[in-house]
């Protein structure tokens, strides 16, 4: 029966308006939620367990404020919840090394994660952790099938490929045909009582550091037209002014 880890991350609500304070994003008053792709990863991990048995452990990194994302995972069905106790910026190198060490310590055959976190959008953690562990990885899975082997449906040149995934492996999940379950009352009650397994982590030095944030440059006001007939003018401008056709 496989031990299954799902990596979850708390990020600003994707509907939040973002402001800059100084040289960082102003997080005050921004609601924090589980990164949307991690919800698919959690759903995939739970289905894997339902098909093969085993345990699902949700792991996040952060301060005490990140416990909420673990409680949310618990409410939906994670068996264990673990927080790697570190707050603050880490580059991909330091972050992945810390996560790989934790996965080794916890022990697992499969690690699920979102294809990218909604804040950084980078998508480096899944494949990077896999490389450090010497594991296989598949990314951007839009479907999973759990039979004698695990099959992932992943985008490939010219369509989607059904890929046989070996053990052990890291699987990063895109939004696909998995419908994410909602917590039930019992799950929510259990999550309230559940203890977070807080573990200290050794973090290495980061050679990439953040030096500033800004809002994207505002776009100059465009041209606006009333009525469908104006579409002919726009068509001509696309060729003559914008030069895109």
């Amino acid at each position, binding site marked *: 029966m496989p031990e299954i880890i799902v990596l979850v991350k708390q990020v600003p609500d994707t509907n939040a308006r973002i402001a800059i304070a100084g040289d960082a994003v102003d997080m005050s008053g921004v609601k924090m939620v589980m990164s949307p792709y991690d919800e698919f990863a959690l759903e995939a991990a739970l289905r894997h367990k339902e098909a093969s048995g085993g345990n699902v452990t949700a792991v996040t990194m952060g301060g005490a404020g990140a416990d909420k994302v673990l409680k949310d995972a618990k409410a939906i069905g994670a068996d264990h919840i673990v927080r790697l106790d570190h707050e603050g910026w880490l580059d*991909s190198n330091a972050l992945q090394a810390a996560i790989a060490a934790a996965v080794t310590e916890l022990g697992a055959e499969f690690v699920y994660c979102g294809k990218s976190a909604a804040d950084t959008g980078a998508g480096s953690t899944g494949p990077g952790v896999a490389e450090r562990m010497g594991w296989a*990885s598949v990314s951007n899975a839009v479907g999973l099938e759990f039979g004698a082997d695990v099959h992932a449906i992943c985008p490939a040149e010219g*369509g989607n490929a059904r890929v046989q995934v070996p053990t052990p492996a890291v699987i990063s999940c895109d939004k696909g045909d998995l419908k994410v379950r909602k917590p039930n009352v019992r799950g929510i009650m259990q999550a309230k009582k559940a203890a977070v397994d807080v573990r200290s982590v050794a973090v290495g030095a980061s050679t990439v550091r953040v030096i500033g944030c800004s809002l994207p440059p505002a*776009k100059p006001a465009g041209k606006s037209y009333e009525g469908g007939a104006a579409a002919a003018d726009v068509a001509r401008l696309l060729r003559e002014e914008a030069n895109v056709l």
Partner: protein
Amino acid sequence: MSETVIIAETAGGVVAPSTAELVTAAVGMGTNPTVVVPCTDAGAANAAAFAGVARVIAAKSDVFAAYDAAAWAQAIDAVAPQGTVIALASARSKDMAARLAARRGLPVVQDVVAISGTQLTSPILSGKAMQTVEVEGTSVITIRANVFTAAESGGGPDVTVVDATGDVRTAVVEMMARASERLDVAEANIIVSGGRGMGDPSNFSHLETLADTIGAAVGASRAAVDTWDDIPHSMQVGQTGKTVNPNLYIAVGISGAIQHLAGMRSSKYIVAINKDADAPIFKHADYGIVASWEEALPVLTSTLSGMMS
């Protein structure tokens, strides 16, 4: 600046034009890059001899016939010289770049849109903000398409062929054809997208007619994908769909939710057609047409059709 090494973007075994943009980025960093071309047939690497390139290495291996992250990273690592590695920020190359960086114990910085010395800027929060980082030493970076101009082709050096191997871990059991033969939004230079304002999924046929006229892919908003089963998620542009960066994005019947804007706001030119003059999409449009799609779309299609023929 240490040496820079470009991993060429390939599609169908051919060097993709976006590779020339990576050369411009590397030259802008004050280096003459080495271009490594992952290929099964070394002849493919001839197309990577762009102006400004110091050398081209054809990394020839059977593993490059189909993507396996571990094997690609292993084979590329064996062939690519040390130094700052640059790849395209495509889904596949971001994945490979993350593995290659981890393999070499380097940090990876994804989705770079601006380079100034050792400072790299990338969009975060799906483009709602830009983040600049300072990199100490070497790193692996991926660069968004359509940001840097393409380097001229030709004038580059000869190609060195190096055989590479990697341990393939995953196995493709079957290829599943796309639901449609249409161009994918992630690969298109022009995208025509429809939202719930299209009224009914059958009306997307009008978007397809326009798309066929100008060689565009057809996309959709999350609202459309969530409302209509006939509109597959593979078409979704936005924060939980695909992030796109085309030269031209035509949004029809799309109000412009933050979700959607996050996936397409960096498009070079945006045309919006919506009957609601207050729709947020108009704030981001270069050309906004306040009209129903029934009125505007046939005019747009027929005018463009006349121009393109």
